[in-house]
């Protein structure tokens, strides 16, 4: 069995973690240096995936199937398309930065910390690369444990509570997901006589409408908890606030995207008709998320909580985008996933840096940072503007496309989405003003400006913030086939529905017969 590049990308972090077991826990610097090296090599490997990746090609590339548990029809089936690739790149990118940002932040159990981070990286990449439902579920649940440790050990005051909440919410959602997977699996066997968890084989299945509605809900609730979509979001502020900086960054940057990814990769293509049926409902939830998140952010006193709730709003945008079922909305949502990972990730890094200096995250404790920390404040400003969606920066591209899509789908949705953008400007600018401008507080006078290491954490993100903002074409091109594939699936279901209305039942039978031939 030859090791393929994609498997290498998935498992390299775990392999790299093995030597750490034999390192001395005392030498923190060496531990972090080594882990940084591993994550950088990992990032390099993930860039190699780009090398023979054909942007214009539909379907999956770097696809490999190995036997795993043939007894129940589960295989180690991996492959990526543009959407998975861009998310994998985001993962490896943010993990490396996360390690770089943790040098001073982590004061105890450094050895466990780096192991957990590497384990998590494998889990995250695995989720985006698996094309087998059982394999996907394995990585999906595997992620829980490192994140649980990350929040629970290196978090803040209420860390244990937040960690539990995170795990139990996700597991409850997964209960429905795995049941849905099992029902689909046996339905497939009933129809085709084959036991398989292979996603591409299950794609071909035409699930009857009644069953599809139930299964879609089972999948959707699991993914909605992870996203999180409005009524399921309550774990997020706790987890975000209590997690250490790198944990929050990965949580916001990557983990939340797994929910959206789940919709696009699993729930939509498997049950397109049901997705159409529930679209208005989820669009409404997305809009509620946008408005609710914005208002909640507005009233927060805690910087990190503000960023956490702004995530709810941003994710609301993305949910709105994917449920418009047109190219603008879907592409906008995918690119917005990356944007949110970059800008919210950067915001969490920034909050973490402030916390390291002052050991508080209360907005009122700061003020006038522009005078004390000019470089830091400039970067903060750029990131903040990108999060609002200022034209020329990355956030604008995603939000604009989503808005365009929403406008095409339903104008009401677009109206509320615009409101959301205005609110976003309100809470972000208020916060920025209170932290960076106003009078310098005495306590803040001696704060050092950004250090070289910190600069190297933020600078790469800034590069992408500008790049995507000014020239998004390569990114859009990369994800175009994936978005197109999803929409194609949905549209064909829509057309089938229309056909049913137009053609009488007995004619339908003859058409089916012709097709069967």
């Amino acid at each position: 069995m030859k090791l393929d590049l994609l498997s290498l990308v998935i498992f390299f972090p775990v392999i790299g973690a093995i030597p750490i077991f034999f390192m001395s826990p005392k030498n923190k610097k060496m531990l972090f240096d080594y882990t940084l090296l591993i994550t950088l090599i990992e990032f390099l490997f993930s860039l190699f995936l780009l090398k023979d990746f054909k942007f214009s090609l539909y379907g999956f590339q770097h696809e490999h199937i190995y036997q795993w548990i043939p007894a129940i029809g589960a295989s180690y089936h991996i492959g990526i398309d543009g959407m998975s690739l861009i998310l994998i790149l985001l993962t490896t990118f943010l993990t490396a930065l996360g390690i770089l940002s943790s040098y001073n932040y982590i004061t105890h159990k450094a050895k466990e910390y780096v192991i957990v981070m590497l384990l998590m990286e494998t889990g995250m990449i695995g989720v985006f690369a698996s094309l087998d439902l059982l394999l996907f579920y394995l990585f999906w649940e595997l992620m829980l444990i490192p994140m649980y440790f990350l929040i629970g050990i290196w978090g803040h005051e209420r860390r244990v509570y937040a960690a539990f909440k995170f795990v139990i919410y996700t597991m409850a959602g997964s209960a429905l997901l795995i049941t849905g997977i099992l029902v689909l699996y046996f339905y497939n066997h009933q129809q085709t006589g084959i036991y398989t968890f292979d996603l591409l084989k299950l794609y071909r299945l035409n699930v009857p409408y009644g069953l599809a509605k139930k299964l879609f809900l089972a999948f959707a609730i699991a993914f909605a908890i992870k996203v999180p979509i409005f009524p399921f979001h309550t774990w997020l502020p706790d987890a975000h606030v209590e997690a250490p900086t790198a944990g929050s960054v990965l949580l916001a940057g990557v983990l939340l995207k797994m929910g959206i990814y789940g919709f696009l990769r699993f729930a939509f293509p498997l049950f397109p008709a049901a997705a159409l049926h529930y679209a208005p409902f989820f669009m409404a939830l997305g809009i509620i998320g946008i408005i609710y998140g914005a208002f909640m952010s507005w009233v927060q006193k805690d910087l990190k909580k503000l960023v956490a709730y702004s995530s709810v709003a941003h994710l609301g945008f993305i949910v709105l985008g994917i449920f418009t079922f047109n190219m603008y909305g879907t592409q906008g949502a995918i690119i917005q996933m990356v944007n949110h990972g970059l800008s919210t990730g950067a915001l969490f890094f920034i909050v973490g840096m402030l916390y390291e200096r002052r050991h508080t995250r209360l907005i009122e404790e700061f003020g006038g940072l522009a005078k004390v920390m000019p470089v830091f404040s400039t970067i903060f400003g750029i990131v903040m503007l990108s999060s609002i969606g200022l034209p020329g920066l990355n956030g604008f591209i995603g939000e604009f496309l989503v808005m365009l899509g929403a406008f095409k789908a339903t104008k009401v949705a677009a109206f509320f989405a615009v409101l959301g953008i205005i609110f976003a400007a309100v809470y972000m600018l208020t916060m920025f003003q209170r932290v960076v401008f106003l009078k310098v507080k005495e306590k803040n006078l001696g704060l050092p400006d950004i250090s070289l290491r910190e600069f190297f954490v933020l600078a790469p993100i800034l590069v992408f913030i500008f790049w995507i903002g000014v020239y998004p074409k390569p990114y859009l091109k990369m994800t175009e086939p994936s978005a197109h594939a999803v929409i194609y699936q949905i549209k064909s279901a829509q057309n089938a529905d229309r056909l049913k209305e137009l053609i009488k039942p007995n004619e339908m039978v003859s058409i089916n017969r012709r097709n069967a031939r």
Partner: protein
Amino acid sequence: MNAHILLPEIILSITAALVLIIEFLTPRRLQFTGTVTILGILLALFYDLSMFRNAGVGFFGMVKVGPFDRTFDLVFFIGAILLILLSFDYFVEISGEFYFFILTSLIAMMLLAKSIDLFMIFLSLETLSFSLLGLIGILKQKEFVAEASMKYYLLAAFSSAFFLFGIVLTYVVFQTTNISEISNKLFASGLTGIKPALIVTVVLILVGLAFKVAAIPFHMWTPDVYEGAPAPVVAFISAGPKAAGFAIILKIMLNGYQSHPELWSSIFAYLAVLTMFWGNLAALKTRNLKRMLAYSTIAHAGYVLVAVVSANQQAYAAIVFYMLSYTFMVFGAFSIISMLGDSHSNLEDYAGLSRTSPILAFMMAIFMISLTGIPTTSGFISKFYVFMSAAKTNHIWLVVFGFINGAISAYYYLRVVVFMYMMDTREELAIPYFPFLRSVMWIAVIFIFYLGLFPQKVFEIIISAL
């Protein structure tokens, strides 16, 4: 009489006698007696495996041997060997009867899985109960031991009485106690609907067996026995005898009353749901690790009962696989509990373990994660396989309840991890180096990951035995 089909059991019986003689000649030589026992068990295992494919009926139609029963034997053998390994470090000095009881309970379990006559089942059940009683009460001078063994004894006797009633009634209805004859007569009678007499026999037999697998509401003995008995014995009780209980439930319900699933399948469905929820909810409150694992074992019995409800070929395979994986999980957890000692099994005693003994804490975390059923560990794949058999027969709600229970159980399993990793020690607990306990721990971890990641080989063996 076809005696050779029970050759492994005969070897074990001879070993048991030998152990008593050795104990008489050189008393209280823990490792020597134990080693002799292990050798006897290995010899029996060797014969068991070499006759794996041989099937046959013997002992006047009382015993039927097939490859399937031998897969259950594997679970029993592993449990016994791990128990003996644990005992080397756990007990300072112990009489050789301990090994005698291990052997007799092993024989009883093996016979249970093989008997096809209700009387034979009753005899084996009684042998098993008394052997386990001996194991539970082996440290008679210790606190709570008397309570534990008394409770076990009374409830075992009680449930046996029910079982015996059930047998008598069965004989009244069918004029036979042979399971396959019952099945034939039931099938030939062309009976439809539910007959009161039949229901009563099924329920009575069920009560007797529900005690063995600690299903609600016959679980009352579990927490006290778990708390009072020595840790290695507890691990043994929750693995082998439970598997034997399930083997016999499967045998009676699926072979005997196969043609009339309406008699028992809904009873098991309710029992399964109740047992899972009760076990998990009760475990949420407990602060003692041994007691918590007692409730957890009840919950796990609930998961396995889900497979019993579905009553198909896959359920057989799923239950064997589940019990196999559960054996490793529970022995792993109890090997670490043994290292810290029975009197230090409160959650507070585990606080800060990750700092004082990082390896133990890490392993314990793996066992807890596996018991929760998180993927890559055998706990997930076995639970998944069990629920798969239920999904196959469209018991969707049972599956949902099962996985939801997984989420509930995460709370108390991960709380152990919280104490180990996220709290600080009050007092430093010096844990000596126990080679045998550690080896059991490593064996458990290796098999948990092996079964969790690459279950194919074991699936093949089990499925081929069906």
